[in-house]
């Protein structure tokens, strides 16, 4: 017998079949083009950071931020639409599928999307000699944890709001700042001391540092367990919130 979680995952994959062409460009091709032009182009001017060439330095940053973008981007309009217009969660609610099945099926789908983009990106980076340690192989796991740490709370947020105008606020005040100040393009040490705590509360920064330590073969600024714990807190809190939000939305 098929597990209801798998049934929900299948639905999301079936729908993805219809729009994968559009998303391949933004989630796979774009990051690759981006890292090549910035890494090779800008890298020619700035040289390196901390003894590493610039391309190798930003690859782990862009890798994690790709996972971050997919985690946030996928979980906004789609989730709201599935509640408000399609009402597909209402449809599932009338079956043995329970709220955890809906959430797991949805988040597994998002993680699959994240992993496909991350693996393609890694392969291209390896071809350009931007990976310097076998630890690079754990970056997909880091990205999965990051994906969950953002997808779960954003899904919860999307299940709470009544209108998509809230997403503009989310992008402007949460997503863009946490991308800029997360050590993707330049080290957070360059930030003024006042702004630096912003990086520490951004799940992206923790993932960027873990990925960078992995691809360059060094140690992250905080103990690995501390970075992982921060991401895990986001993931667990997000799941808890999402479960509540779904329950509330479907109950009345």
């Amino acid at each position, binding site marked *: *017998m*098929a*597990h*209801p979680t*798998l*049934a*929900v995952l*299948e*639905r999301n994959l*079936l*729908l993805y079949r*219809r729009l994968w062409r559009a998303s391949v460009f933004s989630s796979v091709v774009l990051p690759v083009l981006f890292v090549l032009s910035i890494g090779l182009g800008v890298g020619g001017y700035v040289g390196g950071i901390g003894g590493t060439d610039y391309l190798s330095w930003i690859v782990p940053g862009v890798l994690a931020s790709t996972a971050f973008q997919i985690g946030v981007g996928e979980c906004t309009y789609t989730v709201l639409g599935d509640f408000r217009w*399609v*009402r*597909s969660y*209402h*449809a*599932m*609610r*009338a*079956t*043995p*599928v*329970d709220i955890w099945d809906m959430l797991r099926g949805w988040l597994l789908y998002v993680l699959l999307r994240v992993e496909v983009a991350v693996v393609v990106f890694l392969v291209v980076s390896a071809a350009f000699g931007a990976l310097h340690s076998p630890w690079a192989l754990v970056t997909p796991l880091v990205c999965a944890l990051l994906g969950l740490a953002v997808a779960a709370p954003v899904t919860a947020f999307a299940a709470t709001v009544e209108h998509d105008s809230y997403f503009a606020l989310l992008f402007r005040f949460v997503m863009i700042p946490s991308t800029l100040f997360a050590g993707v393009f330049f080290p957070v040490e360059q930030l003024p001391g006042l702004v630096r705590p912003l990086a520490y509360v951004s799940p992206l920064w923790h993932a960027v540092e873990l990925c960078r330590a992995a691809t360059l073969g060094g140690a992250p600024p905080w103990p690995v367990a501390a970075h992982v714990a921060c991401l895990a807190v986001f993931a667990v809190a997000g799941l808890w919130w999402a479960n509540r939000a779904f329950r509330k939305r*479907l*109950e*009345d």
Partner: protein
Amino acid sequence: MKRFGDFTAVDGIDVSVAPGEAFGFLGPNGAGKSSTMRMIACVSMPTAGELRILGKDPAVHGSEIRARLGVCPQLDNLDPDLSVRENLTTYARYFGLSRQEARRRAEELLEFAQLTEKAASQVEPLSGGMKRRLTIARAMVNDPDLVLLDEPTTGLDPQARHLLWERLFRLKQEGKTLVLTTHYMDEAEQLCDRLVVMDGGRIVAEGSPRALIERYSTAEVVELRFGVLRPADLVGKLEGVGERVDPLPDRILVYTGDGDAAVAEVHRRGLAPSSVLVRRSSLEDVFLHLTGRRLVD
């Protein structure tokens, strides 16, 4: 009993439905029909009172009960970007059917819903009647013991409604237990063995359509229209014609056992109605009598 904050949507109703029965909740918009259906579907929990579905308690066995229900909600919630067939197979998977079984079941139900030719089409361009048929077919994927239909034909044109009734009638003949809501009298009369009339969250009457008509109305109703004359002013002159006289804004209803005799009496009293219609009494008359209001405005 169901409350939303301070507002009581369903105010203490007491019903039981036997297996194989077709049971209806009849009432105007806002009567609390959908709120009741959502509690029966184990989607929303009663604020107070006792509820048993298929002999089980929804608070404890929700998912187990839902596995044996077929639900056709008031608002369609088909997946517009999936094909007609995919809507059925996807839903079948929610009930744990294997892929192969889901496909087989989908073909059967496409046939049942007369949508075989549309199987590969997307849902979006389908007509309202087709979407409704698909929603009902989808509710049947798990071969449910109890089928819940919330206003199955609201908003459809007469032809689409008749086709749907015919399909629902087939389910009834197959021995399925049906619980449906409607604000159409003819629908209730066509499909329900027994029904309750709801208004303002309460039950105002219960029985079979025939029994309700016999108890609260008369065999026939004469509808009289008098052009520009106000119905209310003419009631006095109709005193004693039939068993009861009911003035509406645009016409007068005379409840009587014998319509033709009543019409003859009206003419004998020198009244000249601009139009006369003798018809069989319907649930509409029952509702009007019980609540003083019409069902659909």
